[in-house]
């Protein structure tokens, strides 16, 4: 006989489970029936959980899609917050195949998944990304025998090894924090659009040799060997597909900080593509591929202003240049990008032959100070 798994107040006769909008809550509190009490020798997961487990996964999948309307606001708010955290590098990655983070966490369904606590949508914790990047940095970038052009000179490759100078700067040690901040990676709202092919999706793993994997012993005390006669044991679980937004920032607001942030993003991009993040990476899970060029939002903003400044006709410089100085003052970009815009304005003033008239003006001096 199966055991009731949920509280009486949460039974499906009392609660409209099909209207749930938080996948994490459904998965962790609303399993109606657990495995039957001991004495049932069947290893077939479907017989142990008569349809309840699969039904719960389907409800959780729908719930994640239903959460999209409120999730969009949180996602946009997060992007706005990241803009204030300069320097920052952001990228979009598409999942190649499937992704599963948190598979081994303790769960009554025996296959966990990491979901956002408030919205119940899939996320990749910053700690997972940092761990992956740190390990890849040590094993690949720090390994002279697999040295590749671009990350450093071959002689300096050792500085990326664990405990060495560049590894410490990026990731820190147990005594000191690193300078790069690995933000949680959030799935894009478009990946929760309810077409059934993205977001949370049903998946299955089918171990065939359970006794061998768990080290069961036969009557003689020898480990049971895997055989061709073992029954397959299909186990359903949830995995993730879609597009993920990844962001890194640095606690040093300068040109140097920006360079290190971009380097860290390049490292993480390689690691995500080649090694993958989360569980079952040996089976091909967790590979993320850059789905567009590195999005440097600050550079895009600065480029737009610089293009306008350069397009100014000489005759219009005297009347219009101060408006661009005001625009430059209010521009919320990194210091490096702000300096580029200042350089463009000063270059335009000089090109228009107005340097002598502008030299003693406060706004011109302010620009020159920023360029130095």
């Amino acid at each position: 006989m199966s055991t009731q798994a949920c509280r009486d107040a949460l039974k499906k006769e009392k609660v409209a489970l099909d209207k749930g909008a938080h996948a994490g809550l459904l998965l962790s509190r609303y399993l109606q029936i657990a495995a039957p009490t001991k004495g049932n020798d069947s290893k077939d997961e479907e017989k142990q959980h008569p349809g309840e487990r699969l039904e719960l996964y389907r409800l959780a999948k729908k719930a994640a899609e239903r959460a999209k309307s409120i999730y969009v606001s949180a996602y946009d708010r997060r992007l706005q917050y990241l803009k204030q955290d300069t320097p920052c590098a952001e990228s979009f990655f598409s999942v190649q195949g499937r992704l599963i983070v948190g598979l081994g966490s303790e769960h009554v369904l025996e296959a966990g998944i990491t979901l956002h606590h408030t919205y119940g949508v899939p996320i990749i914790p910053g700690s997972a990304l940092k761990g992956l990047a740190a390990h890849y940095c040590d094993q690949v970038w720090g390994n002279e025998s697999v040295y590749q052009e671009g990350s450093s000179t071959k002689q300096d490759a050792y500085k990326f090894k664990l405990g060495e100078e560049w590894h410490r700067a990026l990731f820190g040690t147990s005594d000191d924090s690193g300078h790069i901040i690995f933000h949680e990676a959030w799935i894009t709202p478009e990946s929760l659009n309810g077409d059934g092919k993205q977001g949370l999706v049903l998946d299955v793993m089918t171990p065939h040799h359970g006794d061998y994997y768990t080290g069961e012993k036969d009557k003689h005390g020898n480990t049971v060997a895997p055989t061709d006669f073992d029954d397959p044991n299909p186990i359903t679980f949830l995995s993730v597909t879609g597009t993920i937004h990844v962001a890194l920032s640095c606690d040093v607001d300068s040109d140097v900080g920006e360079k290190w942030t971009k380097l860290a993003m390049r490292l993480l991009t390689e690691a995500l593509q080649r090694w993958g993040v989360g569980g079952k990476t040996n089976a091909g899970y967790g590979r993320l591929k850059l789905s567009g060029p590195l999005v440097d939002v600050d550079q895009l903003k600065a480029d737009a202003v610089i293009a306008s400044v350069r397009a100014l006709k000489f005759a219009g410089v005297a009347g219009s240049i101060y408006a661009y100085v005001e625009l430059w003052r209010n521009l919320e970009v990194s210091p490096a990008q702000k300096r580029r815009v200042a350089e463009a304005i000063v270059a335009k003033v000089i090109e228009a032959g107005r340097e002598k008239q502008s030299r003693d003006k406060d706004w011109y001096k302010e620009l020159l100070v920023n360029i130095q």
Partner: protein
Amino acid sequence: MPTREQECAQRAYVRASEQSHDEETRRTDQGAKKKEAEYQRYAKRFPALIQNCGLAQALAFAQAKAPEDYLTDLAHVVESAMLVDALAAQARCSDISQYQKLTRDTLVASTWLKRYAEALLKGEDE
């Protein structure tokens, strides 16, 4: 006069000790060794299971999968002489404030059992 937490710890210590076997028994009796390892494994997992899935689901899962000894000991550590079925029934039927208190008490009990299981018992490979 001991505190409630101390009394809980004392009950957990007694029950965990009873699951421990000496080296000679572990070497000659594979069944006893496996039983001790399995008890330790569930003792370590159970607090996290309560945190992730709530008390009612964690107990239902344990009734199906965990060693009977562990559940019997857990119920006794929560409250002296409490039975497993009574604990599970309370978890399913209580109102929310009673359920929260029961969850807190069971978390404390399972954490003490975990500590003593880690200290006094040996895993499969040890």
